[in-house]
């Protein structure tokens, strides 16, 4: 693939530089959510830069020659399983004249043939066939100096950890194992400690900037306030405790909420004794809230964003990873991939299905997140000079204040890391 010089775009908006007025990340200039220039720069420095973007669950492509189409930022790409069970990933753009090569969302294929002129590639993206390469009727075809090896599909680095598949454009990106790092790996190890089965996905299209959602999942402060389902039906149980950690660079995060002493997760236990904040309001089908203990630690909620495209979650017995796909400065698509364990009993599988009501586009305790990000987008896209403030817990070492769950420390850390990555 023939490389042109890198773009000269820089972090400006309407010709004016974007400035973060405070070093600690406690001020976020609203332009970063709507500026096309910033968005173009993010594609280059983040999505095509030194990051690993989540693209699939291995469980989505279990067999040789399985493939799945997805995106790294704005770039369409495909992840495949090779005949030796290894993984490959490539930009979904024909090396000839640039057509989408793979036009299916998912499937199984030994070779991928571009519709336009039938150039064919193997699962690794190597160019295998060119119709009329040697011409026809004594007429010449491709020039003699044309070498297949130079014209495969643009390869992406690909690696997986515990069945989560990531891709990266950049040689600068550290190995996936280190990128996830020692602080985050235990969270993923916990959820993906045994074989899983993919149960399907649901999609949500949100009219807001993709970073607003990254903020949202690093913002424990909003949980009990935005999502009234908790309070209305008293889903916050007595003595619930939190553990929240983040990676050194501040880009990844891991929150867990634990059941309190003597809470066995069975909704019956506290069903009667706790009155609803709104008098008389009760769930009739409280089994929705039963949390069956599946791990050493009895965790009610596990939310773990791995920058930039992934969030690993366990909400009671619902297991899902979320993929965040930017679609221009003002939109992102959010895809929930649900799964269960291969050894689930039928009852547990049914229970997971029932609890799928809690998350996703119609999730009883999560539907508000997309809307919250839209509310910010709508109020901040008018071009006026203003900035968000994230001061909760400021001035105290993060590790001291964060466990309370009432903190914006991780949001500040996120924006410090963002400026670093973006060179702003």
């Amino acid at each position, binding site marked *: 693939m023939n490389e042109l010089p890198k773009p000269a775009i820089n972090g400006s908006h309407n010709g004016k530089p974007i400035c973060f007025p405070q070093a600690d990340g406690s001020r976020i200039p609203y332009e970063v959510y709507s500026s096309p220039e910033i968005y173009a720069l993010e594609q280059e420095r983040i999505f095509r830069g030194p990051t690993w973007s989540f693209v699939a669950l291995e469980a989505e492509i279990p067999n040789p020659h399985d493939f799945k189409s997805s995106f790294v930022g704005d770039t369409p790409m495909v992840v495949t399983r090779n005949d030796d069970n290894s993984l490959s990933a490539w930009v979904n753009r024909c090396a000839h004249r640039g057509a989408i090569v793979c036009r299916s969302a998912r499937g199984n294929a030994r070779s991928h043939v571009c519709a336009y002129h039938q150039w064919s590639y193997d699962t690794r993206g190597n160019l295998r066939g060119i119709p009329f390469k040697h011409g026809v009727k004594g007429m010449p075809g491709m020039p003699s100096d044309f070498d297949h090896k130079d014209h495969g599909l643009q390869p992406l680095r690909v690696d997986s950890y515990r069945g989560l598949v990531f891709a990266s454009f950049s040689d600068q990106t550290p190995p996936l194992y280190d990128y996830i790092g020692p602080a985050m790996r235990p969270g993923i190890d916990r959820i993906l400690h045994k074989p899983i089965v993919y149960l*399907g*996905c649901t999609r949500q299209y949100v009219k807001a900037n993709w970073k607003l959602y990254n903020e949202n999942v690093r913002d424990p402060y909003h949980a009990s306030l935005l999502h009234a389902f908790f309070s209305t039906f008293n889903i916050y149980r007595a003595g619930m405790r939190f553990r929240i950690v983040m990676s050194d660079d501040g880009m990844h995060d891991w929150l867990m909420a634990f059941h309190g002493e003597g809470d066995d997760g069975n909704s019956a236990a506290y069903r009667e004794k706790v009155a609803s904040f709104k008098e008389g309001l009760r769930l*009739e*089908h409280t089994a*929705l809230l039963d949390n069956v203990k599946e791990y050493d630690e009895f965790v009610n909620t596990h939310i773990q964003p791995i920058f930039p495209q992934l969030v690993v979650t366990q909400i009671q017995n619902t297991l899902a990873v979320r993929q965040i796909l930017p679609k221009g400065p003002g939109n992102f698509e959010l895809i929930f991939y649900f799964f269960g364990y291969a050894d689930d009993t039928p009852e547990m599988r049914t229970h997971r*299905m*029932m609890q*799928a009501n809690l998350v996703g586009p119609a*999730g009883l305790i999560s539907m508000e997140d997309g809307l919250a990000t839209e509310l910010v987008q709508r109020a901040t896209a008018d071009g006026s000079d203003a900035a968000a403030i994230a001061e909760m817990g400021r001035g105290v070492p993060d590790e001291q204040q964060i466990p309370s769950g009432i903190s914006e420390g991780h949001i500040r850390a996120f924006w410090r890391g963002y400026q670093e990555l973006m060179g702003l």
Partner: protein
Amino acid sequence: MSASTIAEIERHGAETALAEIRLWFELYRLQERYISAIDADRLEEWPDFFTEDGVYEIVPKENADLGLPVGIFHCFGRPMLRDRITSLRNANLYEAHIYRHMTSGLEFTMVDDSTVDMQSNYVVVQTLTDGESRVYQAGRYFDRVVRTAEGWRYQRKRAVYDTSRVQTLLVTPV
């Protein structure tokens, strides 16, 4: 449905029995009342269109086609249907919105004297506070209805939606 089946139905149709018209009419009116109740925001009535053990699901076609179970609504029985409405009225946050259901392509087959399987296309046009109306969801209903002492009820209603990209959120049943 093979040509011969069509032919059969049609030959029968040629002297369509009043009973068939009457059955169709009752099923058709059930659906008309169902969508009218939702579009008029009479959501407290919604669970009553189902049997006590009625199952209601909203599932994306992309999962249904792959035999994958996950959807965005999975309600088992009237209590869960009522919980959804209680949550919508008291707990959830969403923008004001108006639904207009359109339906066409109703097909039905008798399972037994008091049980019918029916299907129908649906399109929900949604209007938000900006005052613009957009196609919010298109899909097809796959329903099982039973004749009860109170009349026809949904024993199972499965909305399989084409529009896999749900705009912002879905809180009101379709």
